[in-house]
């Protein structure tokens, strides 16, 4: 259970409604369903404006329990002489000034009665009024848990805390000298990997032996072929893979194009609904499942290009090279094709580097940029910061001019993976200059299972417990210094408060809190 109190200023029509606005913000954090939120807003605003119009001052007191919201709006004012009459539609005692603004229709209390599940009014003439209403709401359904392919090499960590601040979902902590990843928040992007100087954060399989081919097919993203300096173009990279013994090199660029066309067709088949999100980057799909559940319906129902490319190889001896944990995650998932091995990019790149130039020089053919520009309505966004901004804009209904949003977690798409040696901008440019001729006819593959919301930021599966914890976190956050220094190992004071309440850390982890005086209440 959590409680809150908002002040209401009688007579201040300008500020009228601010208490209801604050209440709305709080209820959104708890995740109240939209129908109940709407009913709450009607009731709260009517009750608040009654105080503003008729009384001297008042308070809105809120008690949030398990599936039940109790709101009490108490004022000191003239009171209601005849409550039964006040409940009749059309009866009003509002002054002309309020009527000019659209109030005083005599519908306020009846409106609350219609919108709430219970209404109780007590009033004493000359003293004041207490309007109490109850809203029942449904707890949200708990989502599934995430899956993380990120790996921590404890010995290498220097506790620089860069990863802690780099994470967009505040999923990284450094505690007892060791980085931890909160799996329910991690979406397998590469931001912490990129931020980590000593390479303590990485992906599985980076120190495996370089692969040796025996005629099998190797599936690679275009970025892998342009990691070998100015003298070696994409065709030299492919030649190096052949020199390592692979029989066929499948570059996923064809499947990327096929996906883009399929997503554009899909968007055209549902006009008027705003942009469709391309599932091109598995990390962004994870992010949406964790943090942007309201956008799940916008994700086009296809698998990522690398999954589509691998799908046609079932039963064949094949190897897929993953350039990030998210890609590794989707390839290793139960729906990944049996028989297709998945390896991390770094050992492959090392092995290729030793073979570059052996197979003679490849021909440089200019490629249409990857990801190519299939349509002007495709808004391509790359880099976690920009992706988060774009998804937030989309959630707020601000990207209506795009038909398709194509988000990539790494800057410059997969070329920007921090697990590849070459800088993203350079690699991409080199691919555009030399990557022609790899556009195998790919195809888009429909996804069988629906996208599902994950547990993500929910504090507890039990809504009542979640609400109680929200209150505790709020109180504790206010006691912390608010410097967001990260020295406790959490990125912000609020994140530490959450850790304390959820039993992941002690309050004494905050060094200011132990060295400074308790702030006055």
């Amino acid at each position, binding site marked *: 259970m959590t409680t809150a109190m908002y002040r209401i200023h009688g007579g201040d029509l300008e500020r009228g409604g601010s208490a209801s606005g604050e209440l709305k913000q709080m209820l959104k954090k708890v995740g109240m369903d939209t129908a109940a939120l709407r009913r709450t807003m*009607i009731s709260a605003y009517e009750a608040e404006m009654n105080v503003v119009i008729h009384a001297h001052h008042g308070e809105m007191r809120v008690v949030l329990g398990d599936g039940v919201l109790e709101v009490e709006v108490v004022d000191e004012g003239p009171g209601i002489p005849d409550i039964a009459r006040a409940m009749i539609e059309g009866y009003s005692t509002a002054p002309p000034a309020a009527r000019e603004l659209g*109030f005083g229709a005599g519908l306020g209390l009846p409106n609350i009665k219609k919108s709430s599940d219970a209404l109780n009014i007590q009033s004493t003439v000359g003293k004041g009024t207490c309007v109490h209403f109850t809203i029942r709401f449904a707890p949200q359904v708990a989502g599934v848990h995430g899956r993380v392919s990120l790996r921590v090499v404890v010995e290498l960590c220097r506790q620089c805390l860069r990863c802690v601040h780099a994470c967009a979902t505040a999923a990284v902590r450094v505690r007892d000298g060791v980085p931890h990843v909160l799996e329910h928040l991690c979406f397998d992007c590469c931001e912490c990997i990129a931020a980590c100087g000593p390479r303590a954060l990485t992906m599985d399989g980076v120190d495996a032996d370089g692969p040796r081919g025996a005629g099998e097919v190797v599936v690679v993203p275009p970025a892998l072929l342009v990691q070998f300096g100015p003298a070696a173009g994409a065709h030299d990279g492919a030649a190096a893979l052949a020199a390592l013994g692979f029989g066929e090199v499948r570059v996923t660029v064809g499947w990327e194009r096929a996906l883009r066309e399929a997503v554009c067709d899909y968007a055209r088949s549902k006009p008027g609904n705003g942009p469709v999100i391309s599932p091109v980057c598995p990390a962004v799909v994870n992010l949406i499942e964790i943090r942007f559940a309201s956008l799940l319906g916008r994700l086009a129902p296809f698998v990522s290009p690398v999954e589509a490319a691998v799908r046609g190889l079932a039963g064949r001896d094949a190897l897929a090279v993953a350039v990030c944990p998210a890609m590794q995650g989707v390839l290793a998932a139960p729906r990944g094709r049996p028989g297709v091995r998945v390896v991390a990019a770094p050992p492959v790149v090392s092995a290729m580097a030793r073979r570059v130039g052996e197979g003679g020089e490849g021909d440089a053919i200019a490629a249409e940029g990857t990801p190519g520009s299939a349509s002007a309505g495709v808004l391509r966004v790359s880099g976690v910061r920009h992706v988060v901004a774009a998804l937030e804009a989309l959630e707020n209904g601000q990207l*209506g001019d795009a038909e398709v949003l194509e988000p990539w977690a790494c800057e410059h798409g997969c070329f920007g993976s921090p697990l590849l040696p070459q800088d993203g901008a350079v690699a991409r440019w080199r691919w555009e200059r030399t990557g022609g001729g790899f556009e195998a006819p790919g195809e888009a593959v429909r996804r069988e299972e629906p996208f599902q919301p994950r547990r993500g930021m929910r504090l507890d599966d039990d809504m009542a417990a979640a609400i109680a914890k929200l209150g505790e976190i709020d109180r504790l956050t206010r006691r912390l210094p608010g410097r967001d220094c990260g020295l406790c190992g959490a990125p912000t004071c609020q994140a530490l408060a959450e850790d304390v309440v959820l039993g992941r850390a002690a309050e004494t982890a905050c060094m200011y809190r132990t060295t400074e005086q308790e702030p006055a209440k």
Partner: protein
Amino acid sequence: MTPCEIAEAIGARVLNPEVPIQACIDAVYAGDRMSDLLSHASPTTLAVTNLASHQLMRAAALMDVPAICLLHGVEPAPEVVAAAGEHGTAVLVSPLGMFETCGRIYAQLSRERQAGK
């Protein structure tokens, strides 16, 4: 139809075109009673009203109303438009009165409904 498309079709001006709205309007509340607006409002409702006030913008924000159409060419104070923009509410001003404005909007929405079926 989006609020901007409606504005164009009925000859209204959008006072804060920088506010990006993609809501698809499928309902209209026309009138000057706040309580009625509250009980009819939805995230796809256009409110047509004479009330060019802060209170209206606040109510629109609370109820997620995407756009408001004011009447008789009367523009609200700039700070009211600014407040609406902060909440992400589009403010339209029709040069006509309530009857004419609603008639035109009704015709547009009916046309769209027929075309969609």
